C-alpha cells in the first residue's frame, strides 16, 4: 500500500522536483557567470580609476619639479596645492575596494586636481544628458573627466 503511494508521489511531484532542480542548476550557473562578469567589470572600472589618478599624480610630480626653481608667492601657493594633491593620492587605499569613503576621496582628489590645473587646463568630457527641469538639469548624468594636461617644457 505504502509503495503504491510513493510511486504516485514520485509522478505527481515530478513537475515540482524538476522545477527545483532546474532552478538550482540555473542559480549556480548564473552565480558563476555573474562572478565572472563582475570581476571583468571591476577590473575595467578599477583600471579606469587607477589610470585617472595616475594621470593626476604624473601631472602633479612634473609641475612640482618645474616649480621648484620658482620663488614667487603665487608659485609657492601652487606648490602647496600640488603637495596637497600628491598627499591625497598617496593616502588613497588602492588595495581596499571595500573602503567606504572611496568615492568621496576620489571626488576630493578630482576637486584638488581641478584647483591645481586652473587656468590653462585642456579638457574634454563626455556625458549623457536629458533635460528634466527648466534650467537644464540632467538626472542620470554620467560625467567622465578625461584630462589632457598641457605641459610646456
Amino acid at each position, binding site marked *: 500500500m505504502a509503495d503504491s503511494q510513493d510511486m504516485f508521489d514520485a509522478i505527481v511531484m515530478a513537475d515540482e522536483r524538476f522545477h527545483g532542480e532546474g532552478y538550482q542548476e540555473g542559480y549556480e550557473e548564473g552565480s558563476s557567470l555573474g562572478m565572472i562578469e563582475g570581476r571583468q567589470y571591476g577590473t575595467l572600472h578599477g583600471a579606469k580609476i587607477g589610470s585617472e589618478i595616475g594621470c593626476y599624480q604624473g601631472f602633479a610630480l612634473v609641475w612640482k619639479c618645474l616649480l621648484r626653481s620658482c620663488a614667487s608667492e603665487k608659485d609657492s601657493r601652487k606648490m602647496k596645492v600640488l603637495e596637497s594633491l600628491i598627499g591625497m593620492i598617496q593616502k588613497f587605499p588602492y588595495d581596499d575596494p571595500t573602503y567606504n569613503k572611496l568615492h568621496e576621496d576620489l*571626488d*576630493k582628489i578630482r576637486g584638488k586636481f*581641478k584647483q591645481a590645473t*586652473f587656468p590653462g587646463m585642456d579638457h574634454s568630457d563626455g556625458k549623457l544628458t536629458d533635460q528634466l*527641469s*527648466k534650467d*537644464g*538639469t*540632467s538626472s542620470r548624468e554620467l560625467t567622465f573627466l578625461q584630462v589632457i594636461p598641457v605641459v610646456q617644457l
Partner: protein
Amino acid sequence: MKDSLVLLGRVQAHPDSRCWFLAWNPAGTLLASCGGDRRIRIWGTEGDSWVCKSVLSEGHQRTVRKVAWSPCGNYLASASFDATTCIWKKNQDDFECVTTLEGHENEVKSVAWAPSGNLLATCSRDKSVWVWEVDEEDEYECVSVLNSHTQDVKHVVWHPSQELLASASYDDTVKLYREEEDDWVCFATLEGHESTVWSLAFDPTGQRLASCSDDRTVRIWRQYLPGNEQGVACSGSDPSWKCICTLSGFHSRTIYDVAWCQLTGALATACGDDAIRVFEEDPSSDPQQPTFSLTAHLHQAHSQDVNCVAWNPKEPGLLASCSDDGEVAFWKYQRPEGP
C-alpha cells in the same frame, strides 16, 4: 491680506525671453536683471518710473542665470549657461567686463560674493561649488573645488557675517561649507526636502536659513552650537543645523526663489504658479519652533512662472520680482494691520 502687496510698476526687461534673476546694489539705488537674451540690464529710477540705465551685452554666449553685486557696489558678477562667470567693473553708468572666470564644465547656475568682498563662490550643473579669492589687483584665484553634491547645484549664498557658504542642489539637499586649515570643507548636509532645492536665504542675523524647493515647501533651518540649551546634539565642536519650521500647503507649484528681508524680517517667495507670497513670523512664537503666517498672496503677479523675488536693502517693503514672461515688476509691501 487685501492691498498688502501693491504694484508700483512693470518693465519689459528681457524681450521675448525669460528674466531669470534680479539683484539690488548695496545702496538700493540700482537693480540688475539678467535673462535668456544673454544680456544684463541695470535699472534705476527717474522720477516715478524705472528706466534702463545700462545694457551689458557681449559678455556671455548663452543665458545669464544670476547676477550679484559686490559688497562695495563697484563690481557685478554674472553667472552664465556658457560655463563662465564675468566680473564687471562699474564706472558711473558704464560697465566693463574685467575678468572672465572659467573652469566649470557646464552651465554656471549661481554666483555670490562673501560679505568681506574678498571671496566669490560659483556653482554649476557639473555638481561642483568653486570658491575664488580676489586680491587687491583684481586677480582671481580658485582656492577650492568642492564636489560634495551628487547633482546639479542650483544656488550658493554666503552667511551675512561669517565666512560660511551654503549651496542648494537638485540632489534635494543643502550643504554648508567653511574653511578649515587652508581648505574648504563641507561640514553639514541639511536633508528634509523631497525634491530639488532651488534657492536659499539667510535671515538678518544669520542664525537661520530658509530654503525653498520643487516639493512646494519652504523650510527654515536653525544653527545650534555645541553646548546649546535646547539639548540639540552636536558632533564635537561643529554646530548642528535642524529644520525648525516647514511652510507647506501654501504653494501649488515649485518655489523658485525665497528672499528674507534684511530690514523687516519678512519672507517673500517666487512660485511657478505665477504668484508672489509674503510670510511674517508670528511675534509670540517660540524661537525654537517659530510659526509663520501668510500676510500677502498675489495671484497672477506675472503671466508666467515667477523666477526671483528681491527685497530692496534700504527701502523697507520695496520688492522686485521677475518672471519667465521677461518682465520685472516692482511692489510695495505693507504688513497688514492685524485684528
